[in-house]
């Protein structure tokens, strides 16, 4: 599983990354977590607000800091 955190490095982006890491640990899944800070790359995905969360190439949230539980639900395949 590949998880990408979209954001330029602000506090909310960092919080989303921390929550994603905690969710991965909690769910016991194997995942690569990558931070994308390049605005052009973020906009290529159609993301107009940060932070953003991408799981296996699909943008799951934009402009929000999902909680650990919300990310865990996403990892299970929920929306």
């Amino acid at each position, binding site marked *: 599983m590949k998880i990408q955190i979209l*954001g*330029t490095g*602000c*506090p*909310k*982006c960092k919080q989303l990354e921390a929550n994603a890491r905690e969710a991965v640990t909690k769910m016991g899944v194997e995942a690569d977590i990558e931070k994308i800070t390049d*605005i052009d790359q*973020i*906009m290529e*995905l*159609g*993301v*107009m*607000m*940060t*932070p*953003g969360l991408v799981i296996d190439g*699909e*943008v*799951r*949230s*934009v*402009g*929000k800091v999902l909680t650990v539980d919300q990310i865990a639900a996403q990892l299970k395949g929920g929306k």
Partner: protein
Amino acid sequence: MACSCSCGGDTSIKLVYSCAGAANTGYLADQVARKLNHEGAGDMTCLAAVAADLSGFIESAKSADKNVVIDGCPVGCGKKIFEAKGIPFTQYVMTDYGVEKKKTGITPEVIDRVTGEICTAMNA
């Protein structure tokens, strides 16, 4: 691109979409959307990508404070796309601004006038 982060400000996020159809009205819709984007009234993004269900565009539309759909004519392709996705939006139609489909010439003056009227309506 807007940042919802505490460092990025709390301004409202307005996304602007244009039908960009083939007729003069579609051309005007596109030009108005670009001018609104240029003037900072909103961030223009791709209506076609919303129609194509591209996840980043769909999630951005869902998270925006306001989605402004600029349609050229009453056929309302932009409106129908947003209705189909169940995403809230506000629609403006170029033919409501004294422009006749396939007849009115789209001059810089027309673009300026319609952009100004829509900008005022967006902020009302």
